[in-house]
């Protein structure tokens, strides 16, 4: 009964996507760990953290799609929430180093000893506990998003102005985290991690587990987002995006809708960042760079905003492209990225998924006309059982 209800509320497409992600979460680590070295199907060790990193980017792009694609809030500061989650996890990993740092201080991380600090600042307390740090990877970005959104949405800051202040937010955070006296390692950030949950952080088994966790997180976030956008709340979000004052005159609190979505999205971004840090082995203030947030927007735009799946694909493809180009032709990557954004904005406003949808629509139309010529009845009326019409799902 509950399962059937859930199935109806999620739709088969969301379950397929989540199913594939869960299969990846099991099969990829299995291929890496169980197959002998040199086997054609074995994922090499260095690929695991790389692919795991892409999965966390995909979660970040998905989180952005919820606020931008569905609610019309073009956040140019979403990487900040990702970075905050990354820092919260980094703080835990720093404390896990224990007495094995260069200065062998059992409590203080090296950079604090170096600064001559005698005791841990209060905001580092509790981060030796994994559960606490894990909680903070959601709570800190969520709290920031809530406060920021509360101020911005209540005073009805929208459009370009909102985008600009989100950029200002991430820029201000970057400057703050660059300062040594903030207590987050300044310029160098947090690095030199050794263990996570008692396991060596660079061991293949740990890497495989982190990869799995990243795939599972993406799957769960995708299911949650699907539940939201397919509900009446999802319709309300689109209503707020398209005609905010109409929604208000219908009696909806547009600011509450935005605040909820923005906060939830920031928490997802924070969780993704928390899995990013142990896989890349470092978090530093560069993660707050305004350019990083703009890259997230490009991922979502390339994949197709307002589709949930598109931004996931976009994040994967663009990041893979970036890895390849920055290794082979580092000097042209930024031009290529800029050019890609311009191209997509001008010629593929609905992104890759929009192109796929129109190809599919073209096929369907051709098939229908072929059938009509053959004298067969055209398709019956599309069924009303699916609460979201296909056209809207593909391209709101």
């Amino acid at each position, binding site marked *: 009964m509950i399962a059937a209800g859930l199935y109806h509320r999620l739709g088969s497409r969301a379950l397929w996507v989540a199913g594939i992600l869960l299969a990846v979460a099991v099969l990829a680590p299995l291929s890496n760990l169980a197959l002998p070295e040199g086997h054609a199907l074995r994922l090499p060790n260095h690929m695991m953290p790389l692919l795991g990193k892409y999965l966390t980017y995909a979660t970040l792009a998905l989180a952005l799609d919820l606020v931008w694609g569905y609610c019309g809030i073009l956040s140019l500061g979403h990487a900040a929430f990702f970075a905050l989650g990354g820092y919260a996890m980094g703080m835990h990993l720093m404390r896990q180093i224990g007495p094995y740092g260069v200065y062998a201080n059992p409590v203080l991380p090296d950079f604090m000893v170096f600064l001559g600090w005698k005791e841990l600042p209060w905001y580092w307390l509790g981060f030796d506990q994994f559960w606490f740090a894990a909680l903070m990877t959601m709570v800190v970005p969520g709290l920031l998003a809530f406060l920021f959104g509360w101020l911005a949405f209540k005073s009805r800051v929208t459009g370009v102005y909102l985008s600009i202040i989100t950029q200002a937010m991430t820029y201000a955070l970057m400057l703050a985290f660059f300062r040594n006296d903030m207590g987050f390692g300044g310029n160098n950030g947090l690095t030199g991690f050794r263990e996570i949950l008692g396991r060596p952080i660079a061991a293949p088994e740990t890497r495989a587990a982190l990869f799995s966790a990243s795939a599972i997180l993406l799957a769960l976030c995708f299911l949650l987002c699907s*539940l*939201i956008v397919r*509900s*009446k*709340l999802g*319709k*309300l979000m*689109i*209503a707020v995006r*398209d*005609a905010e*004052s*109409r*929604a*208000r*005159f*219908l*009696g*909806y*609190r547009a600011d*509450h*809708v935005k605040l*909820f979505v923005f906060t939830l999205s920031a928490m997802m971004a924070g969780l993704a960042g928390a899995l990013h840090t142990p896989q890349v082995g470092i978090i530093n203030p560069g993660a707050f760079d305004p350019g990083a947030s703009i890259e997230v927007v490009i991922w979502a735009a390339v994949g197709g905003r307002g589709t949930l799946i598109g931004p996931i694909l976009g994040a994967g493809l663009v990041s893979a492209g970036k890895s390849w180009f920055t290794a082979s032709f580092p000097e042209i990557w930024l031009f290529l990225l800029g050019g890609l954004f311009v191209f997509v904005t001008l010629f593929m406003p609905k992104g890759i998924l929009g192109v796929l949808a129109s190809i599919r629509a073209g096929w369907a139309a051709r098939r229908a006309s072929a059938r009509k010529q053959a004298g067969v009845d055209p398709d019956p009326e*599309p069924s*009303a059982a699916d*609460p979201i*019409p296909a*056209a*809207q799902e593909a391209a*709101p």
Partner: protein
Amino acid sequence: MSKVLPEDCLLYLDGVTVSFDGFRALNSLSLVLKRDELQAIIGPNGAGKTTMMDIVTGKTRPDSGEVYFEGGIDLTRKSETEIANLGIGRKFQKPTVFESQTVWDNLELALKNPRGVFASWFYRSNPADEARIREILDLVRLGSRRNDLAADLSHGQKQWLEIGMLLAQAPRLLLVDEPVAGMTDAETIETSRLLKEIAQDHSVLVVEHDMSFVRDLDCRVTCLAEGAVLAQGSLDHVSADPLVIERYLGR
């Protein structure tokens, strides 16, 4: 502060004045709408008709004057959302519907149900709601277009959809701003029939320029000019008023 109003009075404006950069859009406007009344507001462009609706719905705050609704609720202290939830529905001059969503979804969003974020998330459509939506679809003549995107409707159909959305809110007062602007003659006649049908069990305030439409409505008429009431009464009475002829009809 609340105020005791006569029992049959639904909306009460007294001495309402609004200025935009020194220009008085409303100049000590006073107006009363009775319960279950259908009233038409006419007047030249810029008379302040839309501004009057902005005041009632909380979009604009008056510089001075009183605005009360049903038993003395002071509307000048309420937000747009609160006013909507008190039961005042509004149709904008320019049709405003949710273009990228279906006709059905537009009505579902408008349907009177808890408005909170979580209530919306966990809302499940049910037979009673579906029946109500179907009823409204029939009333606004959009039954055959329920699965179409609102963007694909004609201008006139969008106006009807918006009126349907007002009805779905189960309002106690409908404010309808220029519903037949840009409609064909046939659509105009259909719309006056629709509004009269609605007015049978709702209080409705209609702003309109189209005189034959106002005549069809067959109701009390108020003529505004320069932010104040010029004349009031039956259409014949108002259109015979020398001031109305001079400042509105004669132009």
